[in-house]
């Protein structure tokens, strides 16, 4: 038993090295922004660059729009599938995988071809970018929403609410959404991290987004890109930590979802 445990620790140790040595090396390298001393100079320069803030806030806005549009489209659809059209489930699931199969470059050329001439001249509108992002984040939002609905007795709860006189609006906002807070949060954070780092759509549609900015910095500078890499790593882990925290603190009310069975 103890020999087994010893092996487990050994493999854990290797795993740890595999993940953290490159990260530590990148971090150490990012601290060499000033010659001869360890400092956060590279980070200071990143934050001092007006482009950083501009592109980040642009992508941040786009991410928020994507989350709102994505959830508004996908939540009612998935609820409808769960309640009224279970036969459509495999079809929608297949569709939800398409963004993994079709590269973003194909998607963006399709969008440009379709929407650069009348009647739909949308290439210069950020709406097209958001639409593209919604497509890219579709698999993640769909899966999170689907898991959230599966975890609750959707049919039972909606019928119970209906028999108490509730309208669909009340059912959605008082019953369904509050019971899938955790999955909605995870859908939102996943979408956020996808949009913040997205490169292809932003470059091809010529938007000053954070993804292209990182690529540009990476091409032209030495220490700043590593600082950015560490920053985006922290951002991602911070978001995952938030999801974890939220699921735990909300667990008291959400773990009971479907607990009636």
């Amino acid at each position, binding site marked *: 038993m103890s020999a087994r445990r010893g092996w487990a620790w050994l493999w854990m140790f290797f795993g740890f090295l595999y993940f953290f040595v490159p990260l530590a090396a990148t971090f150490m390298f990012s601290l060499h922004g000033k010659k001869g001393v360890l400092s956060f100079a590279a980070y200071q320069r990143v934050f001092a660059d007006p482009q950083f803030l501009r592109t980040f806030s642009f992508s941040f806005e786009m991410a928020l729009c994507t989350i709102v549009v994505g959830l508004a489209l996908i939540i009612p659809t998935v609820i409808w599938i769960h309640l009224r059209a279970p036969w459509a489930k495999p079809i929608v699931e297949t569709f939800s995988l398409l963004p993994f199969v079709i590269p973003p470059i194909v998607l963006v050329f399709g969008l440009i071809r379709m929407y650069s001439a009348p009647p739909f001249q949308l290439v210069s509108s950020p709406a097209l970018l958001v639409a593209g992002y919604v497509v890219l984040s579709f698999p993640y939002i769909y899966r999170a929403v689907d898991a959230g609905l599966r975890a*609750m*007795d959707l049919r*039972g*709860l909606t*019928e*119970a*609410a*209906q*028999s*108490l*006189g*509730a*309208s669909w609006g*009340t059912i959605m906002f*008082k*019953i369904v959404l*509050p*019971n899938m807070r955790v999955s909605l949060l995870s859908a939102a954070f996943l979408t956020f991290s996808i949009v913040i780092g997205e490169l292809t759509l932003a470059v091809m549609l010529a938007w000053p987004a954070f993804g292209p900015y990182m690529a540009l910095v990476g091409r032209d500078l030495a220490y700043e890109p590593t600082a950015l890499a560490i920053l985006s790593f922290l951002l991602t882990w911070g978001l995952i930590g938030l999801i974890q925290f939220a699921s735990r603190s909300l667990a*008291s*009310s*959400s*773990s*009971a*979802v*479907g*607990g*009636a*069975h």
Partner: protein
Amino acid sequence: MAFLELDGVVKRFGRLAVVDGFSLAVEEGEFVSFLGGSGCGKTTTLRMVAGFETPTEGSIRISGTEIVPVAPNKRGVGMVFQNYALFPNMTVRRNIEFGLKVARWNPAESRQRVEEMLALIHMEDLAERYPHQMSGGQQQRAALARALAVRPRVLLLDEPLSALDAKIRGQLRTEIRAIQQKLGITTIYVTHDQEEALSLSDRIVVMRTGRIEQVGTPFEIYNHPANAFVASFIGQLNVLDATVLDPGLGRLAVAGQEVRAAGPVAAELGQAVKLSLRPEMLSLETGDSAANRLEGTLANVVFLGSIVRMVIAIGGRELFLDQFNAPHLALPAVGSAVRIGFPREACLVTLAEALDPEASLSKAI
């Protein structure tokens, strides 16, 4: 005019008629159970009353008003579900309050109503609990209070006790009936448990394959089943093969022994029929006092608490004989020859294709 009327209700899924020609009139304040095996259409019928399914044909009326076109949230029909369906994000209090808020009760009245409901189900102390912090029985009581709070015109219960253990089931059953009688609310109760139906209902609707087999009081259904299906579905039933000796006098031959029913049998001379006997109608005989007697062998004795069930082998079949338990009960040894006796009235004679729905039961009463 009855309070709740179902008139020729049919529900088809594709070509399959799940409910077929269902007509029933329920009086105000009445407690009616739909009883049947799984797939008999009882839940579908209930869901049509609730508005979660739309009948393919027929009409459903409450106080004379057609409700089929009315949306489920406008029907004033409360429902309690098998798996409770309490809102997990709300405490018991807020669950009960939900319907009142939707109906825009004024806050003071609403608060009072919630307190009344909590008192009704004896859960004042648990008002601030979330569903997952309660047992199944407590959750179902809360669900009942939630459904009753809004004063529905009709209360529907869809197998509300089937997810609970036996003891809680018994308690809650009594409580449901008491609350229903106290409030005088018209109630439809769906169950596959005959004991529940018999003990709760004013009337029972026995269903099979989407059709009504019999409607009657528990007493009628048990003692005067309309056909072989109802007879075998309700209660324990011993079924023996018999041959008609004299249809006019109701004389039958069972395993070479003669049995006489209380009246004529609707069958030909020499025809094979089934003789059905309730276990509690049989007794062990020592003398010759019983109208009918059959000789057999005691194969086994099963102790069921208040009842002792004897398994008696007669002509290759096994019969159950139920007797009340007593501390000084002297039972014959297993393997010994016994004689059972029963009155003529105990004989339920059916045609040999016994469980055919159309097989009429020529009850000898």
